[in-house]
């Protein structure tokens, strides 16, 4: 008895007790439905369908400019889109901190695009930004342009679709980070003689930076996995042939699951590189309490 008791004493010291059983379902779930398939995909990627060395699939990918370039294509779309989403969100969220009439309506309106989904957005962009869509019509009737600008079925179509679905998300995240910063800090800076812009640059921005990094990451992850819109509003044969499309084609057009898994793994790895770079940068920032709601 005293033995089991002292054992319990030692576990208790470390915070291990019966409550931890509650983690069990989620743990089993994540192991079976995420870790296992992931590892399965990983091991599959080392078993090339058409023989060859363990790394043959990876070699095949990197030897083939047509495939390799998808990495760059994807980054060229997702990085600027994520960056724009975050940067545009900051000033707008900043304006929205205070209380004003219609704030809830405005935030609600901003939530709407999240629910549009990529497919509807694609369809809407094709209609609206297409050569005879309202956008071009307005520009032409204002004589700003003579010929329709091509904004769909190319890079821009995908880019806009990432803005429409990504910006509201980034905005809401930034807004919640921003409202976590104690407003008295800015007031304190004001009493110390800091002007509006100095207060923003010296106080708010540094405190917001880690949140911006996180927001950037989350929108980047969304943008990086762009798939339906790359097909529907992009130019999937050319400038928007993103890596998820390559993975999809390998799996479902060439039936080479091993190769598809390898591409998926490469995709994860590339994304991880960006994530790690951003996290390393973020780790150098001040990330403690911001004095606000937590």
């Amino acid at each position, binding site marked *: 008895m005293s033995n089991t008791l002292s054992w319990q004493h030692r576990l208790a010291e470390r915070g291990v007790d019966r409550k931890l059983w509650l983690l069990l379902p989620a743990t089993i779930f994540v192991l079976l439905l995420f870790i296992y398939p992931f590892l399965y995909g990983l091991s599959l990627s080392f078993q090339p369908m058409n023989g060859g060395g363990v790394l043959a699939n990876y070699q095949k990918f990197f030897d083939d400019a047509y495939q390799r370039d998808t990495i760059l294509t994807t980054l060229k779309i997702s990085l600027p889109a994520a960056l724009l989403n975050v940067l545009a969100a900051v000033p707008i969220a900043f304006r929205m901190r205070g209380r004003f009439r219609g704030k809830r309506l405005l935030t609600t309106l901003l939530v709407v695009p999240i629910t549009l989904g990529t497919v509807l957005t694609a369809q809407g962009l094709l209609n609206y930004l297409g050569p005879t869509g309202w956008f071009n019509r307005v520009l032409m009737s204002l004589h700003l342009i003579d010929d329709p600008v091509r904004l769909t079925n190319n890079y821009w179509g995908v880019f806009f679709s990432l803005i429409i679905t990504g910006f509201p998300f980034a905005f809401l995240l930034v807004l919640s980070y921003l409202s976590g910063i*104690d407003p*008295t*800090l800015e*007031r*304190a*800076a*004001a*009493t*110390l*003689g*800091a*002007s509006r812009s*100095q207060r923003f640059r*010296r*106080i708010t921005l*540094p*405190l917001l930076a880690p949140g911006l990094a996180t927001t950037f990451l989350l929108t980047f992850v969304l943008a990086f996995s762009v798939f339906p819109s790359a097909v529907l509003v992009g130019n999937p044969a050319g400038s928007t042939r993103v890596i998820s499309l390559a993975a999809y084609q390998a799996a479902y057009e060439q039936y080479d699951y091993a190769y598809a898994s390898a591409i998926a793994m490469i995709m994860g790895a590339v994304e991880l590189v960006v994530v790690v770079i951003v996290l390393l940068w973020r780790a150098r*920032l*001040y990330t*403690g*309490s*911001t*004095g606000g709601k937590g």
Partner: protein
Amino acid sequence: MSGFNRLRLEGVGRRFGTADALAGLDLTIERGEFIALLGPSGCGKSTALNCLAGLLPLTAGSIWQDDRRIDTLPPEKRGFGMVFQNYALFPHLTVRDNIAFGLRMQRLPKDEVRRRTTAAIEMVRLEDHASKLPGQLSGGQQQRVAIARATVLEPSLVLMDEPLSNLDAKLRLEMRTEIRRLHQSLGLTTVYVTHDQEEALSMADRLVVMRQGRVQQIGTPEEVHTKPSSWHVADFMGYRNLLPLTAGRVSGDAVAVPLGGTTIDGVPQGEVATGDDVVAAVRPEDVKLGSEDIAGLKGRVEVVEYQGRECAIEIMLDDGTRLHARTERKTEAGEQVSITISPGRLLVYPSDGAADRPAAELASAGLAV
């Protein structure tokens, strides 16, 4: 920013929606004064301070610095220093950078910034902590950073909003002395907000007692302590015995009030006529236990609370009135005692009808907060 000789608030008010958080505040602050704004939670103290600082636009009145109207200036142009309730230290800047912030905003030469910052750090004795972040400091240390940050600019006016309310009792005592010392040695003019009457009494040259957005009394600590202007102020200033009574005979500077089956004399505060509803106020320390045989008030000790040198006791008078007293004498619950009230220490206030009377203790306790 240049100093000033006199700061005048004229009818300053601030309204939120339809509620006046602050109304008609008139106050003149002389250079070098230490003024405390005192009052219960929600009475408008912080509102007044923020109006003064420029953090909250006025909705009425004006503020004058000598002959210059300043209530339209933004905070960064007023040149006042402010110490916030939870310090509002910049969490991402070191102690040194926090203190240097204001100097840098003035674009002073690097050398001067360094010199003055170092001096301020020494002044608050944080040499060993200069390169820590605020999160790594104790409450008392943070407090001192906040004070150094506000005073390093040598502001013409320093505003402090309950700067001690987050500290524990022992530290609070020490920081009190420290703030007062800084005020004196730096020759500051200070407006200090607190809801702790002892703090206000011990630190300020003048107190401004507020209630429900309005000034109740302005005076020296002694004036406010010994001559509260209304029973509400008395209540707040530690007159724990507040008795709703009816005034008896008024003769010169004394009014007789019925208490415990007999009648005792009090000092009328304001217009009191025979038959008026009044509130009599007396502090526990002015209720003295006499020996049993002296004629006068009599009662039974109900509760005794040991408080070290003294005991706080609660006495039930023969007419059911409860009186709080403090005594060094050893007493026990149940003991019969006779009571004297120090002459001149029973203040008798007129009361504005039935609504304006102190409520019975527990019920009021419940409703007061």
